[in-house]
C-alpha cells in the first residue's frame, strides 16, 4: 500500500530522490482523506522553498489543504497536466499524479521511510 522505495513527510507528501532531484506528490492516504480533487495549486518553476514551507494547496469537493515542501530547494518542473486534470492525483498519486520536481539544496531532513509513514497514517486514521 505504501511504496517502500519512497520517502515521506509527516504532512503526507511523498518524495522520490534521484541524485539532487526530488519528485514530490501527495500520498494515497492524503488523496483518500480529501476525496475527489477539483483543483491543485502549485508554485512556479524557479520558486524556492525551505523544507516545511507551504508551497501550494489542493482542493477537493469537501476540503482544501496546504501542501508543504518536503525538502529545501528550487522548483525545476511542475506537472502542468494537473491544472486540467486534478483527478490524476486521485487515480495515480504515486504516478501520473506527481506534482513537482525540486533541485534539492542540502541533505533532506526529517523524512520518514515507508514504515515510519505507516505509523503516522495509523495514528491519524484513528
Amino acid at each position, binding site marked *: 500500500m505504501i511504496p517502500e522505495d519512497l520517502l515521506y513527510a509527516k504532512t503526507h507528501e511523498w518524495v522520490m530522490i534521484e541524485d539532487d532531484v526530488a519528485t514530490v506528490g501527495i500520498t494515497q492516504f492524503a488523496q483518500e482523506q480529501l476525496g475527489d480533487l*477539483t*483543483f491543485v*495549486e502549485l508554485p512556479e518553476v524557479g520558486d524556492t522553498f525551505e523544507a516545511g514551507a507551504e508551497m501550494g*494547496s489542493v*482542493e*477537493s469537493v469537501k*476540503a*482544501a489543504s*496546504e501542501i508543504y515542501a518536503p525538502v529545501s530547494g528550487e522548483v525545476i518542473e511542475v506537472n502542468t497536466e494537473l491544472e486540467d486534470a486534478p483527478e490524476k492525483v486521485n487515480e495515480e498519486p504515486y504516478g501520473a499524479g506527481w506534482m513537482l520536481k525540486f533541485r534539492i539544496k542540502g541533505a533532506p531532513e526529517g523524512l520518514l521511510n515507508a514504515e515510519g509513514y505507516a505509523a503516522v497514517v495509523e495514528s491519524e486514521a484513528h
Partner: protein
Amino acid sequence: MPFVPHTEDEVREMLATIGVNSVDDLFAEISADMRPKSFDIPEGLSEMEVLSKLEALAAKNATDSVSFLGAGFYDHYIPAAVDALTMRGEFYTAYTPYQPEASQGTLQAIFEYQTAVTRLLGMECANASVYDGGTALYEATMMAVRKTRRRKIVVSEGLNPIYRVMLGSYTTNLDVDLVTVPHKDGQTDLAGLKNALDDSTAAVLVQNPNFFGSINDLTELFAAAKAVKAVSIMSVYPVLQTLLKTPGEMGADIAVAEGQSLGMPLSFGGPYLGIMTCTKEMVRQLPGRIVGRTTDTEGRTGYVLTLQAREQHIRRQRATSNICSNQSLCALRALVHMCALGEMGLKRAARVSMERAHICAERLTAIPGVEMLTKGTFGNEFAVTLPVNAFEAIDKLAERGYIPGFPLGRYFEGLENGLLVACTEKTSEEQIGIFAEMLRGALK
C-alpha cells in the same frame, strides 16, 4: 413578548447566579475613573413623540431639488416592479439562506444575477456581490496580489477618488505599494500608466468612463499589463456598459462596478452593490460566494454554492477575504431592474442619459467663462471649469433647489473651479435649460 431584553427579575437571577449583588459590582474590575460618567442618552419617548421628532428631522432634507450630482452614483429611474418584487417577504430576510436543500429560489436568483452581470461586463465569472464598488475594487486588488505574489499596484488618478481613499485605507497595514499615476487635465494618462508597469507590478487599476467622465479604450494598456504578467482591473459604470466596449472586450482580467445605478435608490450612500467579475483564470481568487448550477443524482437542475474551499467557513484563516459579505437583496434588485428594462431598455436609459448630458454640456459651455474640462468622448457625465470657485456656485444654486454637480476641488488640488455634472434619463431638457440660465446668472 415585551420589547425589553430582560426584566428586573431576570437581572437579579443572573446576578445571583454569578454571585454578585449589583450590576455595578459586575464592573468593579474597571476603576471608577475609567467608567463613563453618563451615557448622555435622553429619557425614553413614546412612539408618537419619536415619530414626530424624526419627521421634523426628515423635513430638513431637501428632497425636491433638481440634482446634477453623479460622481459614481446616479439617479436613474427605477421601475415599480423592482420594489414590488424585491419587497416580498421571501426575499426580505435578515440573512441570505444558502442551504441548497432549502434555498433553491435564493440560489437561483443569485445565479441569474451573476449571469446578468457577467453578460453586461463581458466577463466569464461573477460572485454573488460584495458591499459596494469601492470594496469590490479593493478585493480585486487583493486578488491580483495573491495571484502574482507581487506588491506594486499602479493606480490611475482617473479612478473615483472615493474608491482611492477606500483602497488606501484598506491597504494601510498590508504589504502593498500604491503607485498613483496623475490624471492629465481630467484625462486618464494611458502612456503614464503604461510606463509605470514593470515586472514587479501586481495590477493596474483604471476606470472607464474615468472620474471626469471621459471614455477610453484600454485594450492597449491591458495588453501591456499582460506582457509583464500584471493583472488588469477595470472599474465601470454598469448602465453605460450596454453601449461601450466592455471590460471583457478590452481584455480586463477583473471588472468591478458600483451597482447602485441598477435599481438602487440614492439613499445617503447605501446600501449599495459591489459587482465583481473576472476571467475563468482568476476565479479561484474571487472572494465571496459564488453560486453554480449543477444536476442532482436524478438529473434535475440544482443550484449550490461552489468553490467553497476558499470560503470563510472551511479555511477561515485562508479565506480569500473577510469582508466579502454579499448584498443579496441589492443584487436581486439589480437583477429585477435589468430584467424589467431588458437589453433595449438599458440601452435606451444609457442613450437618453448621454444625450441629455451632451445637451447640458453645450448649454453650459455657451456661458462665457465656462470651459469643458473633459476632452474627447464622454457619456452621461462631464467636467467643466467655471470662472469662479465651484463650491461657491454650488452654494448659490443649491439655495434655489438646483444642485449643479460635484466640486472637483474636494479631491483634486488645482481644480477648485472644476464642476462634475451628470445627467440621467430623469433629467429633463427643461431642467437643463433652467440650470444653465441659473448658472449664467450666478456667474455674472
